[in-house]
């Protein structure tokens, strides 16, 4: 690790003085291998008012320093937004979740191996350097939303659930004004600057994530497919919330993980399902709309099939049709 200056923030304004560190589970790891090389780290963990979960209208305001464990275990979250608890518990290990924060989880970096390997070209790490993943091994890369400059996928589970739950990110600007941005608009695509991943400006600080009121009677699930049963990043995940209005689906919300540079959503797919009776034929047609005809990297072609099956299995589960044969996900291991 390169030498650093350590500063402890005593006010929100101090947060602009360098690279913010909170849980440190991703940043410290990247600093050790010199993928991230800040001169100054600013510890915000002692700032007041960022570590609580508070009721707001009928929803919840989750402080940016609330740990993954605290959020997943919160009785209100378990009851009203079970999708969020499930998604958080699907990620990382208990040790990491005890330290990782809500704000930090949103800002975690891709696990593309070329981003991690400083001997390889990476436009996200060093803009203009090139992309070694393009001609390299790429089974963890994205299916959607890539650019010529970057094919990497966002690894978060939590952010995918927050997207399906229509959460907003509360940001404090350098001048002290607070604004709220829907998760869907918080991330920007890689374009020609894959190093810039969000709409955050210099001096901005994430202060909270805000959940809207829970939907009465909604069925929710987070379905994650990975190489091993625990402590592994998703190959594909689907976060879903559906309310059955008699025999038809309403308030359908779906987000897809590890397939794009940010949680992926497709409003046309939702429109196909909203107000309709669940059936395999409908789910197949919706999957045809969702899944792209080709993958941006030959190694992620398998994700087209995997996303299709995971999407259909999730909808079957949410609408009571049951798991489709051959699409079960192992949930236990020996």
């Amino acid at each position: 690790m390169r030498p650093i200056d350590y500063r402890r923030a005593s006010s929100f304004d101090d947060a602009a003085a360098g690279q913010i560190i909170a849980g440190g589970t991703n940043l410290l790891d990247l600093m050790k291998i010199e993928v991230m090389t800040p001169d100054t780290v600013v510890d915000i963990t002692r700032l007041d008012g960022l570590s609580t979960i508070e009721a707001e209208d009928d929803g919840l305001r989750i402080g940016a320093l609330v740990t993954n464990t605290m959020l997943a275990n919160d009785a209100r979250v378990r009851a009203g937004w079970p999708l969020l608890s499930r998604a958080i518990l699907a990620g990382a290990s208990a040790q990491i979740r005890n330290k990782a924060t809500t704000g930090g989880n949103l800002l975690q970096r891709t696990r593309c191996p070329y981003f991690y390997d400083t001997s390889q070209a990476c436009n996200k790490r060093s803009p203009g350097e090139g992309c070694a993943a393009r001609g390299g091994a790429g089974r963890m890369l994205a299916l959607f939303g890539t650019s010529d400059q970057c094919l990497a996928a966002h690894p978060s589970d939590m952010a995918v659930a927050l997207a399906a739950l229509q959460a907003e990110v509360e940001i404090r600007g350098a001048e002290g004004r607070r604004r709220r941005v829907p998760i869907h608009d918080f991330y920007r695509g890689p374009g020609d600057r894959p190093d810039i991943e969000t709409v955050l400006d210099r001096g901005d600080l994430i202060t909270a994530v805000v959940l809207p009121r829970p939907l009465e009677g909604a069925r929710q699930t987070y379905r994650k497919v990975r190489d091993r049963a625990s402590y592994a990043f998703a190959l594909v995940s689907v976060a879903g919330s559906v309310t059955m209005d008699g025999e038809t689906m309403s308030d359908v919300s779906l987000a897809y993980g590890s397939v794009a540079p940010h949680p992926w959503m497709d409003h046309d797919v939702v429109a196909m399902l909203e107000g309709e009776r669940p059936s395999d034929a409908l789910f197949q047609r919706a999957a045809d709309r969702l899944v792209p005809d080709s993958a941006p990297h030959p190694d992620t072609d398998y994700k087209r099939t995997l996303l299709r099956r995971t999407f259909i299995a999730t909808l079957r589960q949410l609408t009571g049709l049951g798991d489709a044969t051959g699409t079960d996900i192992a949930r236990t291991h020996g």
Partner: protein
Amino acid sequence: MKTTLTVNGRSHQVEHDARRTLLDTIRDDLGLPGTKKGCDHGQCGACTILLNGERVNSCLCLTAMHDGDDITTIEGIGSPDRLSALQKAFVEKDGYQCGYCTPGQIMSATAMLREVSEGAPSYVSGDLDGAALTDAEMAERMSGNLCRCSAYPLIREAILMASEAET
């Protein structure tokens, strides 16, 4: 820079570089080598300690960020003549082969048993109100601790034995 830590009930002031991790502070500055360095990247769990009672990877903690915090290491939960219930169960059930991951396994399991008793759910829990300590629950909840010798079945037997001894 200077940081004050309470480790296993004793207060220590350490002088260190800003880059120092709790893992290196504990092992090299405080002379407590029970906490192991495996991957140094949060993937193996060998460095697991209790930080203010919660299990964390000490390799992913900057010492400077933990001024005033309370730390428990493997040296703090028992001694050769007064083993903790988990230490005793690991010996009894032979819950290791080479032993390198064992301090991390035991620290992690110490916190995990408390989490289960408090009703914390896991990814494999049928509902989010918590779960009994089945083999699947133990495997999921201990997945942040790797054992290259793959002594997992005996580790789970030891944890189960300790949980029964405590209740």
